[in-house]
Each structure stands twice: as structure tokens, then as C-alpha cells.
């Protein structure tokens, strides 16, 4: 059940270069959300009229975590949140990752701030007694939202090799997959090229891939029909799914991208 609530900022600090973590007390959302779901943050000024969607990056007690990158006007406003500020927040929105226990190996793959929803998923897997492998890539060391992770096996890579291996994290994952024989389930959140690479290998390997997609959203609720992705589940390939309502998590086989 979605709730439009007043959340209270409990904490808000930079955890990496231009990446912040906010802890927001909002019981109505914290008590029912699933990894992969997101929230809408509403702002006061009306020069920019879309609320901004953010993945839920974790939950503790009555609070949710957001991990966000400062890239534009509204994330700049968020960066100025002080402890005690009241913010307008709607959630939980969308559908979570479907990670019903299965025998496959659980792999998380994120680029930069794409780690946000997977951090929550990792917490949950860990609670269920599963220790996932977390592949995390970024441009450089300072832009990684975390550098160690006691609860999962962490594989890092950076474009400049400042930490982990040098190169693309997807290359590391491909190498890893080629060495294991068990089926694997990969949960992905990251930039377009990462998702497109996964789309290619999802056919060739013995894996299931779930992806959390990002699209510009006007409502986040299924009202505007703005946030479409091509749906490949029917043969015509000519239907659209709504990222906000049918997603943001999709089985990668169910969605199509233009080149």
C-alpha cells in the first residue's frame, strides 16, 4: 500500500565523491518495502515539476536509506537536507526483485550509484542466509559508494585501476561466470552500456538476469504513461511496459532496447 508521508531526515552525509547517503524516518514506507522498490521525493519549488525517484537502499527500524548522486538541481537540494528536516515522500513504488530462494548463485552487479537498490537486496539475502557476490564498478576509487563489504564477496573494478581491477566490471563478471558451472541469478543496476552488455550475455550463459531500470518519470505511479520500455514478452515486440508500475525491476529477457 503506497503512502504519501512526511519523512524526517535522520542523517545525510557524503559517503563518496558526490554520492550521499540519507537516512529518513518514515515508518509507513520502511515497514513494508522490498528491495528494488523506490520512492518519489517531492520538492517545494515548482520550476521543476517532476518528483524525483530514488531506490530504497536499505531499511533499519522505521527508517529507509537513500544513496544518491548529486547531478542536478534536485539532488543538490537533497544534499542540503539537515537532520530534522521534513520531506514529502511517496512509496513504496514499483515492484521489488523477485529473489525467491533458488539454488542458483546470487550475483549483484552495479555501476556507481546503481549500487543503491542492490545494497538493500544484499541485506535481505544476507538475512535469508545467502551470501551473494557483489560486482561493483566505478570510474575511480573515490566514486565507489563502499570499498569493503563483510557480508558479501566483493569484486571491484575501476576505469583507472585506482582500486580493484582496471577495466569494466562486466568483464570481470563474464570471466567469473565462465568459471562457475552452477546456474546463476544476476541482479543488475547501472548505466545503459552495462545493461546492454548483460542483455547480450543473458542469452549465452546459463543465467537469469534481473535489472532495475531508470527512465524519466513524471508521476512514478502509472498515471502519465511517460516511462515506457519496450516489452519483448509478446512476439510483436510492439508493446510497452511502464518502468514505474510494471518495473522498475524486469527480467532482462522481457525488455528490449533500441540499439
Amino acid at each position, binding site marked *: *500500500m*503506497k*503512502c*504519501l508521508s512526511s519523512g524526517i531526515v535522520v542523517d545525510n552525509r557524503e559517503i563518496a565523491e558526490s554520492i550521499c547517503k540519507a537516512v529518513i524516518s518514515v515508518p509507513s514506507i520502511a515497514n513494508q518495502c522490498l528491495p528494488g522498490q523506490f520512492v518519489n521525493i*517531492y520538492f517545494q519549488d*515548482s*520550476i*521543476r*515539476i*517532476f*518528483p524525483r525517484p530514488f531506490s530504497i537502499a536499505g531499511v533499519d527500524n522505521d527508517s529507509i536509506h537513500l544513496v544518491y548522486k548529486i547531478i542536478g538541481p534536485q539532488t543538490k537540494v537533497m544534499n542540503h537536507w539537515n537532520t530534522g528536516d521534513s520531506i514529502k515522500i*511517496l512509496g513504496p513504488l514499483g515492484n521489488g526483485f523477485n529473489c525467491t530462494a533458488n539454488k542458483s548463485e546470487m550475483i549483484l552487479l552495479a555501476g556507481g550509484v546503481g549500487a543503491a537498490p542492490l545494497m538493500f537486496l544484499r541485506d535481505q539475502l544476507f538475512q535469508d542466509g545467502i551470501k551473494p557476490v557483489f560486482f561493483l564498478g566505478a570510474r575511480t576509487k573515490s566514486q565507489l559508494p563502499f570499498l569493503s563489504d563483510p557480508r558479501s564477496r566483493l569484486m571491484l573494478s575501476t576505469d583507472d585501476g585506482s582500486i580493484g581491477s582496471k577495466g569494466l566490471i562486466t568483464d570481470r563478471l563474464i570471466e567469473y561466470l565462465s568459471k562457475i558451472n552452477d546456474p546463476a541469478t544476476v541482479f543488475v543496476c547501472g548505466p545503459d552500456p552495462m545493461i546492454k552488455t548483460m542483455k547480450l550475455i543473458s542469452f549465452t550463459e546459463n543465467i537469469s538476469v534481473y535489472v532495475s531500470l531508470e*527512465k*524519466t518519470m*513524471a*508521476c512514478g*505511479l*502509472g*498515471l*502519465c*504513461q*511517460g*516511462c*515506457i*520500455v519496450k516489452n519483448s514478452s509478446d512476439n510483436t515486440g*510492439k*508493446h*510497452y511496459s511502464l518502468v514505474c*508500475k510494471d518495473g522498475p525491476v524486469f527480467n532482462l529477457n522481457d525488455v528490449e532496447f*533500441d540499439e
Partner: protein
Amino acid sequence: MSDLSIYLGKDLVLSNPILTASGTFGYGDELSEILDINQFGGIVTKSLSLEPRIGNPSPRIVETASGMINSIGLANIGLEAFLKQKKSFLSALTCKVFVNIAARTEEEYGTVIRKLDNEDWIAGYEINVSCPNVKEGGIAFGTDPIVLNRLTGVLRKTSKRFLIVKLSPNVTDIAAMAKIVQDNGADAVSLINTVYGAAIDIYSRKPKINTVIGGLSGPAIKPIAVANVIKVRDSIKIPIIGIGGISNGEDVIEFMLAGASAVQLGTINFMNPCAVNEILEFLNTYLKQQKLTSVSDLIGRLEK
């Protein structure tokens, strides 16, 4: 509490003047978890066509200064699925339900209306005439006086239901269009639909909207909408339903003073999905403070 009800004519009374605008509120069910839909005077559904339409490819929406451009392409589930999937929810509402209809030919409009005309939970139709007319080279029905004239006449003959024609602002003389619609028997006009707008990404050099030109909405267009209501008010006697950039109670009153009998909330549903609560509260406070017993006392009371 003041009297917020509005008599629109033809036995149609709204519990208050606040409706939702087509395409910005889904079919009403999406918001039912966070909002009591019956707080509205009525809801207007997403434009419905005879067959389902997948709509335009991505990107469909973009933010602009105090506004947004959309080019959804009238994506909708089509008449059959509408009646199958949405009827039980919509027919249980106590507020009025208006079905907005979009079509590519005069015949398609007529067919949709005929198929809906037995559904007694429908309070009326709103005709979206900003759709491209395939028989007239794709020019929107609502921008050609002759086409609009004929279409309204045909639809009036098809149904006795409350008939609203939704006008486009992208014309030289909107008052003339309103007059045509009235003279052909429509029960009300609603205005405005979105204003032509475009935006370009200067790095990719691509349009930010798939169809290059889309429809601008939101607070940015409120002054345009108010001006259009003022232009139309002297040319017709049937009620005007005001639409465009309304985001709070003050805006609602501004439209009513300009001449609107009711209003629709569009883009604000994205910015503030519970705006209707605040608006109804403001209306009550304002009426009390202005010592008015009925909200209908505001209609057209602009002092020039």
C-alpha cells in the same frame, strides 16, 4: 461549510468544481490507495479509443521551466478492455465519471459513444478534438472550424448524454471554435488542451520528445489558459471547464472568476498527487473569508 456544488446543466450536479484532467490521472484506480477519489467533483479518464493504442515511442515526457512536454500518443487500453477492466472500479465511485474519447475519424468517435451509451455510470463524454484527423491529412479536428462543426453535430445526434468538447489553444480564434461547439448542441466546453511545445538536447542534437513537437502543460501555461477562458466566456452561454496549470486553490478561483464553472487538475497530479485535499480546504476558507455561501457565486465575476 460553504456550498461547493456546481450545477453544470442537464441535471448534472458536481459535488465540487474539481475534476481530474484526462491523461494525468490514469483511470482513477492508480491513486485510490493514497487518496479518496470521491473527494473530486468528478474524474475524466485517459483518452479512450475504439481499439487499444500502444502510443508513441520513448522519450515521451520532458520537464521544462515550470512545465512539461508530453507526447504519449494517446496510449490506451481500448474500449473493450476499458469496460472489462475499469468498469467495476469506476461504476462504484460516487463522484461523476466522464469518459474522454479520442479518435482518428468521425466514425470512430461515434462508434465509441454508441458502445458506451448504455453504461449508466458514465456522467458524460469529453471529446478530445486535438487528435489528428486521418481523413484530413492529419490536421487536428479541433483546429479546423468546418471539421469541428460537423463532428460536434454528429456526436450530438449520437447521444443525449452530457457532451463536453475539449478545445485546443493552438488556434487563432478559440472563441469562434467554442461558438461552433455550442451551436451544435454541446453541453459544455473544456479548455485548454496542451500548447505546442518542443525541446532539444544540445549535445545529442536530438529532440527531447519522440514526435519533436509535443504538448506543453503545467504552471507555465496557466496564464495562457486563463486568457483563453476569458476569450471564450463572452462568446458562449454553455459552461466552461477550465484547464491548464492549476496547482492550488488560488488557481481554481482565478479560473472561476475568469468564467469557468469547474476546473480540471492535470500536471499537478504528478507534482502533488494529493492537491485536491489542499484545494478543497482553501476553497472553503476563501468562501468563508469572502462571505460567499456558494462557490458558484464566483463564476465569471472578474471585475474588468
